[in-house]
């Protein structure tokens, strides 16, 4: 069967991918799975977790003080044993990641939503942890 990745510059793209993967072998920065993007403001943190193809029920999100843990399993879809795999690049299987936030989180107000393969977790900063302006009295 001839079914290979191609482009206008097919070799260049394949080489760029290969180079990226090759470099990562010698990179101290280990790529963790699943990948996360984190946004921060004064009163909250928003964490996007890259989890395409995962059922929301298969993901567990836990928070303890300022530590967020995301764990679960990304199943091997369509693997009925009758297929031959020609290419396998997508990360699959069990995962567990922990992220330490710079502030304590209001556990009751954490919100999580899953849309188009991205899990977004909104973590509001705990009221008690927020900076307070101390009023200064004039003498």
């Amino acid at each position, binding site marked *: 069967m001839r079914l290979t*990745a191609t482009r206008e510059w097919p070799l260049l793209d394949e080489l760029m991918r290969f180079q990226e993967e090759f470099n990562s072998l010698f990179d101290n920065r280990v790529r963790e799975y699943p990948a996360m993007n984190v946004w921060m403001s004064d009163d909250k943190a928003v964490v996007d977790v890259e989890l395409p193809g995962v059922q929301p029920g298969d993901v567990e999100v836990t928070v303890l003080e300022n530590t967020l843990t995301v764990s679960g399993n990304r199943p091997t879809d369509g693997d009925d044993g009758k297929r031959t795999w020609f290419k396998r690049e997508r990360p699959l299987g069990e995962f567990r990641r922990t992220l330490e936030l710079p502030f304590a989180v209001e556990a009751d107000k954490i919100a999580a939503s899953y849309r188009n393969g991205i899990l977004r977790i909104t973590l509001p900063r705990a009221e008690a942890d927020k900076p307070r302006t101390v009023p200064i009295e004039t003498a």
Partner: protein
Amino acid sequence: MATAELEKRNQTAPEAQAVRNSRDALMPCADIAGSDKEAVILVDMPGVDEKSVSVILERNVLTITGTSSTVAPEGCKLVMEEFPTGEFRREFEISDEFDPAGIRGRIKNGVLTVVLPRGEAAMPKKISIAAN
């Protein structure tokens, strides 16, 4: 190409993720499986929905594109970026053993599945043997 494909398969560990390609679009991770009846391409396109994905077959090249609709939360600053978002693009060369009219695609939870049925001519056939 066969050797390059094999090397690439061996290289791809669970930490595989989309990389920028020569046209500055993201080259998404893909799995390709085949059986007697069809081939299946699975492409990770997180943040992409059915409205922003497109699969175009032109001659023997199947082009998959899609744009992530993920928006940055208001009033926040990006402090850690492990996965890039934006436009995905990847092309696959399809041999003529597949039936172009039968190709169908579906996107769910950020995974695009493209099924390519083999044409009648490429299907395995049982040859009946007559006695005498």
